[in-house]
């Protein structure tokens, strides 16, 4: 047949191209970014307020237009057509381009802010100067690289959040969750700290920060300068300091017990917020192998130990020795930490030992012994606490975990490793919440009897790399410490098999096969044999 024109045909092609409107929208958004790029190359825009507004508005509008062009003419429902054909979402050329650009941006942001115009003790230039008007309007201060980052971050969460809501407009859980994330980012992470800064003066100084940013995610919360300024700011400061402590030791366990870690990770947290919105197109890239799960368990818990050790050393370093001056001395503190960790360990061991896998037992015992013996060595030999001085530990943590892991790798590599690399492998807050979720929570993902067809949509679209199907096809509930409760597995399931629930603790973990359909006697038998 001679009438085939392969290059002219628009039919039969896998759905990987974007439509004309989406192309125009991309152009609009990109032009907004180009204004920022030009500013970064020191083009001095005459009317900064105007150009910044044009730039940010173009980016925002470009994303919304793109979303409208992608979803508005389609039925409400799952929109995963072509995900694995599109270059951007399947580690193609565009994904690498995006990954490298983002990574480069993070490296400049963390380590070379002078390249984008940060001037210490003088007027900003370049990109940062472009943001000065907005920063002054909010806090009264000139912009910093963190203000630039915070603004772009908030725009990303808000614009891609609206895109996400459009995409999942049939799903109220997803809509509410995303509205919550947009709210917490805009109000708590972006605006409130700026307004708090406005309250500060020469006579009153309070650390202004994102109040929902809880230690250990906020690893510097208990450093000396912050604690000092909390205390010197009087009752308000003291209240904030107490709130910081209560957050991790009281509020967090209660909420996690009732709702699972999702209350934080996919409803409140800023890292999670960016992952769920701007990172949504990359959720399918997470590694689902059992090997990756093993790596995850060791790495994330090692980061947790690191942050506990580092924070202990830092607090220890600025406490005094004289109990008559202040009740909390170095010794009281250090012994307190040792006792707390031992009690925590003993409690878990006593109540939940049978739920711990072999590597969890080895890891828990190993790390406890190491931490306690380091404390012991310190008293026996008088060497430095934890072998290094507190400042080196703090710097190492800030560099390795705070900058490289959470920023450069965690977000820069979204298009390659998926959108939750930091949350899955690195975040010490997620590690704590995860332990609580696995051992002391009412949350689980319920599997609906025998309806699973092992299709694999749930596992594919799990951003945390949980092999959801492995549980669902056996009729088992999913109770995993890493699950952030985003609800996408339940959304993409074509057979209505999964449901996120807070329910009774009885039968929450059912390791037996409970497939329905087969008559009840046979199921009893299957379970007896597998015990």
């Amino acid at each position: 047949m001679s009438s085939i024109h392969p290059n002219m045909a628009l039919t039969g092609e896998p759905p990987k191209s974007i439509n004309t409107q989406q192309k125009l929208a991309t152009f609009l958004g990109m032009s907004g970014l180009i204004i920022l790029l030009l500013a970064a190359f020191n083009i001095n825009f005459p009317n900064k307020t105007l150009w910044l507004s044009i730039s940010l508005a173009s980016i925002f509008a470009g994303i919304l237009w793109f979303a409208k062009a992608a979803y508005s003419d389609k039925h409400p429902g799952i929109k995963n057509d072509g995900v694995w054909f599109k270059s951007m979402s399947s580690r193609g050329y565009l994904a690498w381009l995006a990954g490298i650009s983002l990574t480069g941006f993070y490296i400049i942001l963390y380590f070379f802010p002078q390249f984008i115009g940060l001037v210490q003790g003088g007027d900003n230039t370049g990109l940062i100067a472009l943001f000065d008007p907005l920063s002054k309007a909010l806090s009264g201060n000139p912009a910093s690289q963190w203000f630039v980052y915070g603004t772009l971050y908030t725009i990303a969460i808000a614009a891609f959040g609206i895109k996400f809501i459009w995409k999942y407009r049939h799903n109220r859980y997803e809509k509410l969750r995303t509205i919550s994330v947009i709210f917490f980012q805009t109000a708590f992470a972006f605006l409130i700290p700026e307004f708090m800064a406005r309250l500060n003066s020469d006579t009153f100084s309070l650390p202004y920060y994102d109040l929902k940013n809880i230690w250990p995610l906020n690893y510097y919360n208990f450093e000396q300068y912050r604690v000092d300024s909390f205390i010197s700011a009087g009752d308000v400061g003291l209240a904030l300091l107490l709130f910081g402590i209560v957050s991790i030791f009281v509020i967090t366990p209660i909420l996690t017990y009732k709702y699972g870690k999702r209350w934080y990770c996919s409803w409140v947290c800023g890292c999670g917020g960016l992952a769920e919105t701007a990172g949504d197109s990359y959720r399918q890239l997470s590694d689902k192998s059992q090997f990756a799960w093993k790596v995850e368990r060791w790495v994330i818990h090692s980061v947790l130990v690191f942050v506990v050790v580092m924070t202990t050393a830092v607090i220890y370093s600025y406490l005094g020795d004289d109990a008559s001056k202040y009740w909390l001395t170095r010794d009281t503190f250090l012994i307190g930490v040792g006792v707390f960790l031992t009690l925590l360990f003993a409690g878990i061991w006593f109540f939940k030992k049978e739920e711990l896998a072999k590597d969890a037992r080895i890891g828990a015992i190993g790390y406890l012994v190491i931490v306690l013996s380091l404390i012991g060595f310190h008293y026996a030999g008088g060497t430095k606490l934890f072998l290094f001085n507190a400042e080196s530990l703090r710097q190492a943590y800030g560099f390795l975990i705070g900058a490289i892991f959470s920023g450069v790798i965690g977000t820069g590599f979204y298009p390659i490793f998926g959108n939750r690399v930091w949350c899955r492998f690195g975040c010490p807050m997620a590690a704590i919440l995860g332990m609580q979720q696995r051992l002391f929570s009412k949350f689980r993902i319920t599997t609906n009897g025998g309806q699973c067809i092992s299709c694999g949509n749930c596992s594919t679209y799990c951003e945390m790399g949980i092999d959801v199907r492995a549980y669902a096809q056996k009729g088992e509930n999913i109770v995993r410490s890493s699950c952030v409760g985003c609800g996408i597995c339940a959304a993409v399931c074509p057979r209505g098999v999964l449901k996120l629930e807070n329910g009774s603790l009885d039968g929450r973990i059912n390791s037996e096969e409970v497939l329905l359909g087969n008559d009840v006697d046979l199921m009893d038998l299957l379970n007896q044999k597998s015990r």
Partner: protein
Amino acid sequence: MEHIVIIGNGISGITAARHIRKNSDKKITVISGESDFFFSRTALMYVYMGHMKWDHLKPYEDWFWEKNRIELKKAWVEKIDFEQKTLRFSVGEAMKYDKLIIATGSLPNKFGWEGEELEGVQGMVTKQDLELLEKNSVNCKKAVLIGGGLIGVEMAEMLSTRKIDVTFLVREKAFWGNVLPYHDAHLISKHIISHGVDLRHEEELDKILSDENGRVKGVLTKNGEEIACEIVGLCAGVHPNIGFLQNSSLEADKGILVDEYLQTNIKDVYAIGDCVQQRKNIGERKPIEAVWYTGRMMGETLAQTLTGNKTLYKPGNWFNSAKFFDIEYQTYGWVWSKPKENEQQLNWKHEDETKFLTISFNKTSNKFLGINIYGIRLRHEVIDRWLNEERSIEYVLSHLKEANFDPEFYKTHEKDIFSAFKNQLTTA
């Protein structure tokens, strides 16, 4: 050591293999010519649509089989010598077995249409079908699908993602009308049409037309209309894949005949899954059930029998599920397309017509018989219990909320459903 050989690595064969391994140390070999590893057949469509890649279809990582000592053999079985307990492969080799499980699944129906062997005419059941469809899609503008069942609507959705126009010929007055009550079928038809599919009811294929190269160029319908197309999808049901067993001593009708222990007429030879036909009817079930779930149950049951615990195949209450474009469907118990004697059906639909249900009960005893539900998820365990407890229709309606399995914060419709049914019951 006893050698159990399983022909077919689908859900039935693999479930049997896994459970035999769980309960014993026997040597297990699984044979398939279709694919290297077990995959989810129901998810083939998602690879074509770009939701998943081939590797995502595999429920177990590749190391799983060796670790569990389940040997995999990639080959097509051509002939079975039941006397010598030997399989012959198409490449000439042979393999001995002590016990044999046939789990060869099913193939698309062909009814001797003129042109059914042409290039571009295909079904959508196997991995090879998926690869063929990928080939046939290149430059394709128009496809005609024959037969309105689950595979048909999946194919319609698949082809739509490639901007291929789909004409869908359905014999009944509405989609899948031989299975679904008209109320449900009609609404599904509307939904399919809303996705741009040219759905033709009460229309059948007469013959498939060929171009000069032996490729399909169109179809002729029984109403005399000629529709030009480059793909014809055969979706008029499936039949047991037992062609290679013809002229053997294995007793078969449409499928391999088995007793209630899934044993064939030949000692040490068993059959499970789609390729099976029950000698004795089980409840109201059809003798051949080409369904994922029944294949899995048969695999579990037979594994018990083969590991020393002779177990009757007793599937519980009927259930099934599917998705028609954006509308999820679940069914529990029996809801016939036409109510049987003494049965009554109640219908409800939400105003947006993407959520609806039909519930069936016995008019004299008021016993709840079954439910078809669309766009709302139900909890299998609860409905299953109600069926076992033989609850009344009133009980089910007033407790429907307990069975809801929709995600959190979803709007609930139980009140609306309840009042709609109260009206239907009082006016009936």
